[in-house]
């Protein structure tokens, strides 16, 4: 029988999951992203520097990542390098945004799958007193994710959609008043990540069956997180295919079109394989292959939050006071900007002609993870769902837990190029 789960709530954007179920076991799964704006096309003919502010509007929960990838693409095109200080400030902005997301995702989106928050909704396996403890932190988490965005705005002016990251560097000149605020904020966040790890461990203890569920196949890639400031790198770029680590080669990246009546997600592939991206991919590339599973994905996210908070505290101390750097003299050409971010590998590609945007292409982390079946090969999330045993067909909570572990963002994932033969999104893959 077919089950349509729509909307998948507690995510960003609109995700529909269609399941084929036989004897309570998922035998087929389809991922559908049901919204479309066509960002690449609306950028055409615009002033190139506008792209840095406009592409942030793709996503309200990971906007700063787009400003980084976009500015890198423009800087690559103009063959300019930015100062170490600008790199630091960008990574601090990005770091605060990642913390905002990881805290928000874990408590607001993921925790309610495992324990009761705000009233009795599920039969939690976690004993009542521990459930109450996590519940208290669930409420506190609101303050901490808000605080992370506050930290970001010291450097970026506002969040979501910052103004601080621009072509050639950053606009903000940190003074000691702002510095001292940022220092305490990042300390507070670091302390809270310890609490988050503690709460994760409780959930892990009582739900260890999720160590077995939600396997994408375990092929991972990363575009590198904080790789431009080597002493603070969270993860280098790389590909872990069939458990073997190799250098990232963007020539192996391809994007395929899959026609669907209601979905707008396309299918990015690496060496023609669907690949998982995100904190688990980063941890695997950093410290050796880890099995792809629901719990491992959540675990990688909460532990990464702590690592990022630590780096943030260190980076802050190195920011040069009262210094900024920006540029305006861009030139025509083609540029690529990549970075890993909250949900994984992000790619921006720009072509500038006659001082205007001629083409733009974006491949997002959620497009990798939520990508549809192409050439009879399932996308990562689809694959992770197949084989799952569902106890109560009327409440397939197992599916929701697996889906949430990916932290899906559909506003980011929907970049289909054509539909019914008509071009929706002038972009096409144009890696040099």
């Amino acid at each position: 029988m077919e089950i349509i789960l729509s909307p998948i709530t507690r995510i960003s954007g609109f995700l529909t999951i269609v399941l084929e179920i036989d004897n309570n076991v998922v035998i087929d799964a389809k991922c559908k992203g049901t919204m479309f704006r066509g960002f690449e096309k609306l950028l055409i003919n615009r002033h190139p520097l506008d792209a840095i502010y406009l592409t942030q509007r793709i996503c309200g929960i990971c906007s700063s990542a787009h400003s980084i990838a976009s500015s890198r693409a423009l800087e690559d095109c103009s063959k300019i390098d930015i100062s170490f200080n600008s790199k630091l400030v960008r990574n601090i902005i990005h770091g605060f945004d990642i913390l905002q997301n990881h805290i928000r995702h874990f408590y607001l989106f993921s925790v309610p799958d495992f324990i009761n928050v705000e009233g009795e909704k599920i039969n939690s396996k976690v004993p009542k007193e521990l459930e109450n403890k996590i519940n208290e932190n669930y409420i506190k988490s609101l303050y901490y994710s808000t605080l992370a965005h506050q930290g970001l705005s010291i450097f970026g002016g506002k969040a979501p959609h910052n103004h601080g990251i621009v072509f050639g560097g950053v606009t903000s000149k940190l003074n000691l008043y702002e510095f001292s605020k940022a220092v305490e904020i990042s300390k507070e966040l670091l302390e809270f990540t310890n609490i988050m790890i503690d709460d994760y461990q409780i959930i892990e203890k009582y739900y260890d069956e999720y160590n077995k569920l939600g396997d994408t196949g375990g092929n991972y890639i990363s575009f590198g997180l904080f790789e431009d400031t080597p002493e603070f790198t969270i993860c280098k770029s790389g590909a872990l295919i069939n458990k073997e680590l190799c250098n990232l080669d963007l020539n192996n990246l391809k994007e395929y079109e899959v026609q669907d009546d209601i979905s707008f997600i396309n299918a990015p592939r690496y060496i023609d394989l669907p690949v998982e991206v995100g904190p688990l991919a980063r941890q695997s590339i950093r410290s050796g292959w880890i099995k792809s599973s629901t719990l491992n994905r959540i675990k990688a996210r909460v532990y990464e939050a702590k690592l990022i908070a630590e780096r943030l505290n260190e980076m802050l101390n190195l920011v040069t006071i009262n210094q900024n750097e920006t540029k305006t003299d861009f030139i025509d050409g083609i540029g690529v900007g990549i970075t890993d971010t909250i949900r994984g590998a992000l790619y921006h590609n720009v072509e500038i002609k006659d001082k205007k945007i001629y083409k733009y292409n974006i491949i997002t982390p959620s497009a990798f993870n939520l990508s549809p079946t192409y050439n009879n090969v399932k996308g990562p999330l689809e694959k992770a769902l197949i084989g799952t045993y569902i106890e109560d067909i009327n409440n397939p909570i197992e599916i929701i837990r697996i889906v949430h572990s990916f932290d899906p963002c559909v506003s980011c994932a929907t970049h289909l190029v054509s539909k019914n033969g008509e071009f929706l999104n002038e972009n096409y893959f144009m890696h040099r």
Partner: protein
Amino acid sequence: MELIWLEANGCSGNIISFLNSQNPSFGFLKQKINITFSNSDMYPYGEAAMEDFFKTVENGNYILVVEGAIATRENGKYNIIGYYNNQYVTALEAVKIASENAKYIISAGTCSCFGGISASDPNISESKALSEVIPNKMIIKMPGCPVSGNWMASLLLSLLENKAIELDPLGRPIYLYGNTVHDFCERRTFFERNIFAKKVGDIGCYLKIGCVGPSTKAPCPYTKWNGYIKWPIGVNSQCIGCTSKDFPNYTLFKEE
């Protein structure tokens, strides 16, 4: 009172911004208003979530907040928000249904208020402002890209406390959108003294490099943003007019 927060064709940044609100905070408001439908903040999923949506509408005691523009192409098929009674429900249908019984209707963010980036050229999804798809309804418009969570929180609390909200001809609360950014800008003395920044990041007035503060109505200069520390001009960048009707249909960065 109940609250339906409908995310439509946009970035979902307005709900994130609302979660960021401080004094009153999201948590504080949640004690006063029951959020019965929000894609980002509700436990039920699938049909059960949609059922909560329809039940709230039936009860008729709710505030409707819509963020994102409304995709109208192919009867709204470019933005489906759920599945109910063997049918997909589009955002277009959902706002028409939910606007019927709402006590107040609020457009959160520039896409919902005026179309914004979601409806900008060439607008493949044929997205429109909320007011264009539910004409003849009173809508309180809260533009911003996104709207500051603090502004939203202040509006919701004021409505719950039965305060009168005076609106301008575009439907924006005057207590928030009554003045231009230029009126209260911290760089105003630079403007008066003709000290103009040559590029973003310089200290000065940003008029010559694209600042649209003089024509943009928003309270950013005094409410500031997250944690009341900074705002875009405060980090040495121009106001890009994100609360304006024609945002972002002009060049954001101008060369002097």
